[in-house]
């Protein structure tokens, strides 16, 4: 039987694309497709089962499914394979965010965007994880890119029961501490909210830092703006993250670039109101269930925090809408789109 092998550039812990390899693998196995998971670079603490690209053993009738989010030297050999290929585009952050902070990543992004047209041309079926991503594929030469949303199951997170009002307000931010996600603005908005409205408020930022120097800059910023009760916690495991959502009063994201944004779905699942910027693929995921901070002003974001924490009816409405949005992206629904992509590539 035809096997479906998944390939990506880098596999590591707490990485959204790596998570998709694992989620797809489960879905593919359910349909009877065998095949491995491979990455050009496999971090020492990457999830089990993902092996180096050098171990890819692909038969003539097999399908190679490429999860693409940047160019890693060594991926060219995937381009050159004669087998059928399908592309899932997870988006590539514009390099401008990384030139000063992490030049190596900037190069991965810059070259990654340059190589996208060639990868589109080499693939029999292509998909973006959002319409936003699909539009970029169209610009790269794809005739009719599909939209295959992220396969995410927030139910994996622990759901603790926390008594409402039991503690001081907790603002939760989830995602990598990376320049395009603008953790600096989250810190500024929180500091303003704390100063103007709730001195005892807490900020928990869950996500690994881009690198230690960038983390140090953010820690310095926390001190400069005088914010207290701030915890830049690093990556949390599923149990810890589930507890964080359970305790959160509101989730805040001021990211400027997202191909999809899984934390939105996690917050909806945990009944946590969300404030975010309408950037990239976020509006199609969040829909009407998010308070969109569309202004270029952290003062407005701080006031939105105050509203989302104190207005119980507003919170209830956001939670109701969030549950509905989460249903739209339920894994069983999204897996149909995955199947259609696979079938198109194998046709």
């Amino acid at each position, binding site marked *: 039987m035809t096997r479906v092998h998944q390939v990506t550039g880098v596999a*590591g812990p707490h990485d959204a694309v790596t998570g998709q390899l694992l989620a797809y693998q489960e879905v593919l196995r359910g349909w009877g497709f065998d095949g491995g998971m491979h990455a050009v670079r496999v*971090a*020492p*603490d990457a999830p089990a089962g993902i092996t180096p690209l050098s171990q890819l053993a692909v038969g003539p009738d097999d399908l190679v499914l490429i999860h693409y989010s940047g160019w890693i030297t060594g991926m060219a050999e995937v381009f050159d394979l004669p087998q059928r290929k399908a592309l899932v585009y997870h988006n590539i952050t*514009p390099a*401008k*965010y990384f*030139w*000063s902070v992490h030049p190596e990543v900037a190069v991965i992004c810059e070259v990654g965007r340059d190589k996208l047209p060639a990868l589109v041309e080499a693939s029999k079926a292509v998909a973006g994880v959002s319409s936003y991503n699909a539009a970029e594929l169209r610009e790269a030469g794809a005739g009719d890119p599909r939209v295959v949303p992220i396969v995410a199951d927030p139910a994996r997170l622990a759901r603790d029961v926390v008594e409402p009002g039991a503690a001081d307000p907790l603002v939760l931010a989830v995602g990598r501490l990376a*320049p395009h996600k*603008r953790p*600096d*603005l989250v810190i*500024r908005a929180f*500091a*303003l909210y704390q*100063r*103007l409205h709730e001195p005892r408020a807490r900020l928990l930022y869950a996500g*690994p830092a881009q*690198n*230690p*120097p960038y983390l140090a800059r953010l820690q310095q910023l926390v001190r*400069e*703006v005088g914010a207290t009760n701030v915890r830049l916690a690093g*990556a949390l495991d599923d149990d810890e993250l589930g507890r964080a959502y359970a305790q959160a009063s509101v989730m805040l994201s*001021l990211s*400027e670039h997202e191909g999809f944004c899984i934390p939105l779905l996690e917050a909806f699942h945990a009944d946590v109101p969300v404030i975010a*910027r309408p950037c990239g693929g976020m509006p199609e995921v969040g829909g*009407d*269930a*998010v*308070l*969109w*901070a*569309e*202004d*270029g*002003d*952290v*003062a*407005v*974001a*701080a*006031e*939105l925090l*105050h*509203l*989302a924490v104190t*207005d119980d*009816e*507003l919170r209830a*409405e*956001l939670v109701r*809408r969030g549950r509905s949005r989460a249903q739209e992206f339920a894994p069983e629904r999204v897996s149909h789109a995955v199947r259609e992509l696979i079938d198109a590539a194998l046709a």
Partner: protein
Amino acid sequence: MTQPEDAIQKARAAAAAASPAGELAQSFEHDIAGDAPSDELLQEWAVISVDPERVYSTRRLGAPLTFVKRVFLRLMRQYTAELEAQQTRFNLAVLGRLRELERRRGE
């Protein structure tokens, strides 16, 4: 009750009334450089000098590994310094040529 659609207007009004000044209220676009780096930034980038702090372990308890990596880096310093110097030599030569071309184009 505030409808989600009305929240942004309410927040804007409250923010305008509070008018917080200074560092905290910087605009969203403040910290990100444009797509084209300035001349000064190019000059800065041309001179390669890698901070040893950039060498670290990504593992959760990676402090001992970070230490070992930095020891190796120190042992290899003679080589990496030469690498940095040769790359810097090339970068500065190219940058000089670029500026010369721009000067000629402006004449």
